[in-house]
């Protein structure tokens, strides 16, 4: 009887422990988003075959509410071992000591796009390993171009020419160029900040010490951006539209040009195969060069991870060129990985060309609030509450307090 009770007690304790969160020794819990699932599973199999003593537990996340969920996990100490995060989030984690430095994992530093590494660098150390990068370009409806007498193979490259083209395309209930004015702040940052960079302006300086958002150059860029709505070239629903909404308008045929990443191409092809899709680079001011924000995803290891060494092994494996090329949905962060077959689709050509112009956003602990203050200003302009200068001055005042 006694041994039976003992055994039951042991079994109960064991199952209790097994039920609790977290891994036991040698197991790596990896959080990856649902769009990676299929490819991640294949890579996990490959990894486990080569490293039988390490077990990988894949947990699928959704992009809805992801930052909140990650923060809760990191902040409370019950975190997985590897997490897929967007580049822009890494700094916040690093500065709050929520993730581990990963300099020892990175090999062949030269093979990486510098901007991608910059994103994950803070205080001289590397806090995330990028595996995926992308930038925006402008997606156009070639049919609309031809109908308006424009040549889609010789697209406008300067701001003035671009605005002219948008005007010509705005007929018959169509909008020439859709900007974003709603949704998540990131949508509008990604689309408007590069224009500011092209003139030498910005929201804050790269060292995070100066407010630039109401400098004459920035104001000129913001005026350029918001004028598309002011002058009726962007749909009347702009204030409620994010990138996805603009894509839907494009698919529905009411928008002829809009800014987005290459991930939209697949959806457009699927939902409206009749559209002849074209891609053109983001226009630059006369005498200037184009610019873009580098987006994408990195791996981080939480400070609270239970098996950091095995986690680093997994990341090192995933960081190999071939595996990166397999996992990414857009482009890999390593130059050598770019040679893979799947990146040779002709429609990706312009996106590839934009990559070298990609820059990281400034690394500042209060970046989220800073970009929110800027976005509020943009919305005030679009609402008609304030003109560009007043709105940007207001944003500048708020941002001053945050630096």
């Amino acid at each position: 009887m006694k041994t039976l009770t003992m055994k039951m007690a042991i079994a109960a304790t064991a199952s209790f422990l097994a039920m609790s969160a977290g891994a036991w020794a040698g197991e790596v819990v990896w959080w990856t988003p649902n769009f990676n699932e299929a490819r991640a599973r294949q890579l996990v199999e490959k990894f486990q075959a080569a490293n039988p003593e390490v077990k990988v537990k894949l947990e699928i996340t959704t992009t809805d509410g992801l930052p909140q969920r990650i923060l809760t996990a990191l902040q409370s100490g019950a975190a997985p071992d590897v997490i897929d995060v967007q580049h822009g989030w890494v700094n916040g984690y690093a500065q709050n000591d929520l993730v581990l430095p990963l300099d020892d994992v990175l090999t062949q530093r030269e093979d990486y796009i510098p901007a991608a590494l910059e994103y994950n660098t803070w205080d001289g150390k590397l806090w995330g390993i990028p595996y995926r990068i992308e930038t925006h370009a402008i997606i156009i409806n070639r049919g609309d171009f031809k109908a308006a007498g424009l040549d889609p193979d010789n697209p406008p490259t300067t701001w003035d020419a671009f605005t002219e083209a948008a005007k010509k395309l705005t007929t018959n209930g169509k909008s020439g160029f859709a900007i974003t004015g709603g949704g998540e702040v990131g949508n509008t940052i990604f689309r408007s900040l590069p224009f500011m960079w092209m003139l030498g302006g910005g929201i804050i300086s790269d060292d995070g010490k100066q407010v630039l958002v109401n400098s004459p150059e920035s104001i000129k860029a913001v005026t350029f951006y918001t004028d598309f709505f002011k002058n009726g070239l962007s749909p009347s629903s702009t204030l409620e539209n994010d990138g996805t909404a603009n894509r839907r308008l494009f698919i529905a045929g009411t928008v002829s040009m809009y800014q987005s990443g290459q991930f939209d191409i697949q959806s457009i092809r699927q939902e409206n195969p009749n559209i002849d899709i074209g891609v053109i680079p983001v226009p630059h001011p006369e005498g200037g060069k184009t610019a873009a924000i580098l987006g994408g995803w990195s791996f981080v290891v939480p400070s609270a991870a239970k098996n950091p060494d095995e986690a680093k092994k997994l990341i090192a494996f995933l960081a190999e060129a071939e595996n990166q090329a397999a996992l990414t949905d857009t482009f890999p962060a390593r130059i050598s990985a770019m040679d893979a077959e799947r990146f040779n689709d002709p429609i990706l050509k312009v996106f590839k060309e934009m990559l070298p112009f990609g820059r990281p956003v400034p690394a500042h602990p209060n970046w989220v609030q800073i970009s929110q203050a800027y976005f509020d200003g943009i919305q005030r302009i679009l609402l008609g509450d304030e003109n560009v200068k007043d709105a940007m001055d207001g944003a500048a005042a708020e941002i001053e307090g945050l630096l």
Partner: protein
Amino acid sequence: MSSKPQTLKRPGLPAWLVILGSVLLVLVCLFPFWWMVLSSVKTLRELYTVPPIWWPDTPTWENYRKVLFESNIPRYFLNSIIISVGSTALALVLAIFASYGFARFNFRGKPLLQSLVLVGQLLPTAAIIVPLFITLRVLGLVNTYWGLILVYMIITLPLSVWMLTSYFKNIPVELDEAAIIDGASRLGCLFRITLPLSLPGLASVMVYAFVTTWNEFIFALCFATDSSVKTLPIGLAEFSTEFNTDWGAVMAASVVMTLPIAILFLSMQRLFVGGLTAGATKG
């Protein structure tokens, strides 16, 4: 009061008003839901059109097929049932006792305690998530049914107590007094008199607790990361990938998610009807 030889007819709403009211009610309540259902049988192409399409040319069951056979939704459905039933039952039991105490007794500090019950509800969600998560972690309950059941019980308990107290108050205290004179204990009063007479109140509290737990998103998101315990609202969110929200599937999953509760309520109709206190203390 003696019974009359002939009962007067109760004045009611004029029939046309009842019909008009009902029609309006059904329209207002159902239209968005119907729009959801329509969207769930449209193909992606027909979803985003300008102007919107009323009736799909090519209705498809594809979305339901995806939801029911190709996704984790059935598993999440099971999880949601277990968790919702568990937390509702627990909350109900605790609430019944507490509400009886508040409704029938007068003790020092009662108003304060009653208010305290509500205090936790006032804490902003953002302030409560991380500490609750830490508590769950310490108890080893992250990613378990019990962890979520506990959390949802905490969320629904205060308001269940508050509601049930007012329902109990509506039952004449004379009934209790009569039973006590007959030798019943307090507990006996509760079970034999108060509870049977407060079935509509119990039913409505049950519905409240169940629905709140069933639909809750943010706590489930943070506290249940393993698909063995994930709930339906999370499953819904999983149809949003970075490139596209599969609206057809989301709508189909929403329909799947909403039907059980409508059925639950329909089957509880019995409890909502009647519930008269048969003038037991009069006459």
